């Protein structure tokens, strides 16, 4: 089934990747600069913000799904957009789920780097915006792992996409929701095939990231 490229399977895998990669991309666009900014800016209540961020990393997907469902449902505040039960709604839910993860991990990595770079960059007179950009770029190899962590969490989660997507065949069915459904229906071959693909994708991404990091470390120190 996997090797034959069953069109049903291909569609599900493609949607999964599309949704989770979009979510990881958007969450990174928000989380990387935000995490870096928190790391280099001393302000009152920073500790509290860090504790909250770390706590948000453990947000239960079903709760996020429920909240996004309420926001996007026809009677909800964002109901006018009419995106409930579409891939867009799934992306929204996953962004909310993984943006705190990306932000919190990025903050930690940038804070560690900041220790080393602080005096040098202050001496050069870099503005805060430039500090953020410089640190994000200089720590890019470590931060790439953060991106992967975000993507991994998005690709593996089932609760939020199930609630806001609705697991509609051909429209919002992704790997995790399909596995849940097929298993409960007793169609174990499809469930297993999807499970296998999911694991392979996550493994391949992590192996790739590791290789990139190793090479970069050797080349740039």
């Amino acid at each position, binding site marked *: 089934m996997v090797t034959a490229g069953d069109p049903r399977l291909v569609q599900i895998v493609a949607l999964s990747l599309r949704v989770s990669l979009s979510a990881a991309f958007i969450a990174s666009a928000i989380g990387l600069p935000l995490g870096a900014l928190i790391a280099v800016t001393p302000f009152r209540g920073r500790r509290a913000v860090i504790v909250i961020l770390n706590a948000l990393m453990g947000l239960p997907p079903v709760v996020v799904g429920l909240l996004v469902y309420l926001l996007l449902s026809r009677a909800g505040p964002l109901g006018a957009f009419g995106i409930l039960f579409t891939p867009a709604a799934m992306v929204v839910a996953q962004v909310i789920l993984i943006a705190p993860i990306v932000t919190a991990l990025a903050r930690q990595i940038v804070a560690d780097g900041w220790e080393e770079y602080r005096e040098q960059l202050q001496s050069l*007179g870099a503005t805060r915006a430039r500090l953020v950009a410089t640190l994000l770029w200089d720590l890019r190899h470590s931060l790439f792992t953060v991106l992967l962590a975000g993507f991994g969490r998005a690709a593996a989660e089932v609760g939020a996409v199930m609630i806001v997507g609705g697991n509609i065949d051909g429209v919002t069915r992704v790997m995790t929701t399909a596995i849940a459904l097929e298993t409960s229906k007793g169609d174990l071959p499809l469930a297993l095939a999807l499970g296998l693909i999911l694991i392979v994708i996550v493994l391949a991404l992590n192996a790739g990231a590791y290789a990139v990091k190793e090479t970069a470390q050797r080349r*740039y*120190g």
Partner: protein
Amino acid sequence: MKVGPSHAASILPLCLEAIFFQRGGRDIIDGISAQIVAGPRTVIVGPNGAGKSVLLRLCHGLLQPTAGVVRWSGPDVRNAQQRQAMVFQRPVMLRRSAFANVAYALEVAGYPSRERAARAHEALELVGLASLSGHPARVLSGGEQQRLALARAWTLRPEVLFMDEPTASLDPGAAQEIERIIGAVHAAGTKIVMVTHNLGQARRLGDEILFLHQGRLIERAPTDIFFTRPASVEAVQFLKGELPW
């Protein structure tokens, strides 16, 4: 080719007015007043924990004094922060090429991109790293990285260059090369303010010595006088290696 600081009117002298710096309830700098003037190479010496590095950071503005004032009081002190540079004991290199590290400093300082390349090359030439300009900065040796740090500071044509034990973690050969570059930078008109606990180096590079002890400025004298006829008991003991603790 233009050498030397680009401003006609200096930011110097630097006035330290009764500055104190406390950390953890301890006076690291315990009431120092001094004026650092253009020209002579100023070398700050003293035993470990005397507050040398902290004093340098207070001068450069990386730390703020808990009391007292650090004031640039030259005829033209606009953009004073951009007209000084610092080289640290351990150079911090960005994960990019040697050339890009120098160009980065120029970019931050607001030089237009067309000027950066020529200036950066010139600075790399001065420190003898032109052939390594494309190499990633972080894989250079310790001595090469420190030379690169000097190039990065020098490319800004600072009026004042602060250095915190720039050769402390280098072997003698590399240290000698750094000393040569410091000499060249000074000859081109940059004021040198340097911390070292290598007394041989202080002798070779210093025109005047500031001797710090337990956060106080105990003695200030021309180099030859400090080393031959120190005026204070503390300096005599320090030079004899009989450190009083």
